[in-house]
């Protein structure tokens, strides 16, 4: 009996030694077959792909980002008022206005601050303390704040009067873009003509903030735009065009703003 056992297993084994799991041939073959495709797939994967942002506009993400509670957000946003203004309009040129910006854009930026895809020493520790549910609430609150382009709002704007020479240049870029260089018009993504997800409305934005972000996109300091669109556009703009466009938007004369009353 012991001799027969020895022939089968290929190595000597006592009669009372327990048979180990891997010693059984069919199981070993099965495990090998299961592990082989996993091993091949693991080797074919890229080493370190460059990912601009962890946010992807899938159905679940849009559902989560747009289901915020604005009242709950208003309580969280008390601490934002110090920099972004109590009504969503900041007084510093480098800090963005948040009033009326759509909720998906604000939500995405908070996600990117938290994951470090967009670098900011100020916003990163703030975003780390929030959860993605809190992000949705805060962005719901800011998106509901009234902007000066509401006809009911009679606050005095603009912040600055743009130079008529540069405003002509800016109007051309905002409305028509530059087809020869492949620069699409600003308003085809940032409104009011067309919107894409994650592209905020610019008609109520700060001039200083816009200019800084355009420069950061062009220099590669800010890389959280999906599919490199803003990096490609702003790396092709000249310095003159960048300042013209940001001054035009910052003067509150973006296309969605009302025309000044005729005296």
């Amino acid at each position, binding site marked *: 009996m012991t001799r027969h056992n020895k022939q089968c297993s290929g190595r000597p084994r006592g009669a009372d030694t327990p048979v180990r799991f891997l010693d059984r041939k069919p199981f070993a073959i099965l495990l090998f077959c299961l592990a082989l495709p996993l091993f091949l797939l693991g080797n074919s994967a890229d080493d*370190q792909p460059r*990912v601009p942002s962890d946010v992807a506009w899938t159905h679940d993400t849009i559902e989560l980002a747009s289901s915020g509670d604005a009242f709950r957000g208003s309580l969280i946003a008390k601490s934002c008022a110090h920099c972004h203004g109590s009504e969503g309009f900041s007084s510093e040129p480098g800090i963005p206005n948040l009033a009326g910006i759509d909720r998906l854009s604000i939500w995405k930026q908070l996600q990117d601050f938290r994951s470090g895809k967009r670098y900011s020493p100020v916003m990163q520790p703030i975003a780390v303390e929030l959860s993605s549910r809190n992000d949705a609430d805060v962005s719901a609150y800011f998106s509901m704040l009234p902007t000066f382009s509401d006809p009911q709002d009679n606050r005095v704007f603009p912040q600055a009067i743009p130079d008529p020479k540069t405003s002509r240049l800016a109007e051309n870029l905002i409305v028509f873009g530059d087809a020869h260089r492949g620069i699409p018009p600003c308003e085809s993504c940032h409104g009011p003509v067309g919107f894409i997800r994650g592209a905020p409305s610019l008609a109520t934005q700060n001039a200083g903030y816009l200019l800084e972000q355009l420069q950061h996109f062009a220099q590669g300091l800010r890389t959280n735009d999906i599919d490199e669109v803003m990096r490609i556009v702003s790396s092709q703009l000249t310095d003159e065009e960048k300042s013209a466009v940001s001054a035009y938007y910052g003067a509150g004369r973006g296309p969605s703003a009302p025309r000044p009353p005729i005296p």
Partner: protein
Amino acid sequence: MRQKIVFALSIILVGCIILATRVYMIDIPIYRFFGGGRELNPATLHLAGEFVESNLGTTREPDGSYTVRVVATQYMFVPHCMEVPVGVPVRFRVTSADIVHGLTFTNLRRIIKVTPGTISEAVFEFPNLGEFDLPCSEFCGPGHFAMRSHIRVLPADQFANLRPDQRRSCDAPQ
């Protein structure tokens, strides 16, 4: 008899699971072996897979053939400025991140139609040197008229040093 029925049922069950991965586009890595989950999700192109940002552009495969990977998005072809060698077959692999686009080669009179969720593939040979426009031929929104990339056809010896892990395009360095 009972054992035979259980055996046949289990085989049918496994077959149904494999079919379900194809019908419902379930992307389980082990089922890729059977051809399931081939479809791309256009919303998650930039997270992982073939069309991540660092994998776009011209590359030289280990067998010496050239491949250009392009993502068409609203209103931009990425990379915005492509570089290809002259007189050599170049394989284009294009997909869309949002809606239907058309990558038009004005120097060849050829169009690659790009549909979200699928990869459009075509092999072209560029006869002439120079820089040409690549406009979008499929109306894709208010910025469609300005959706125009460029392609530079360069001498093939400029691509001799391109390693398989390198990607080449003439966009501004990021």
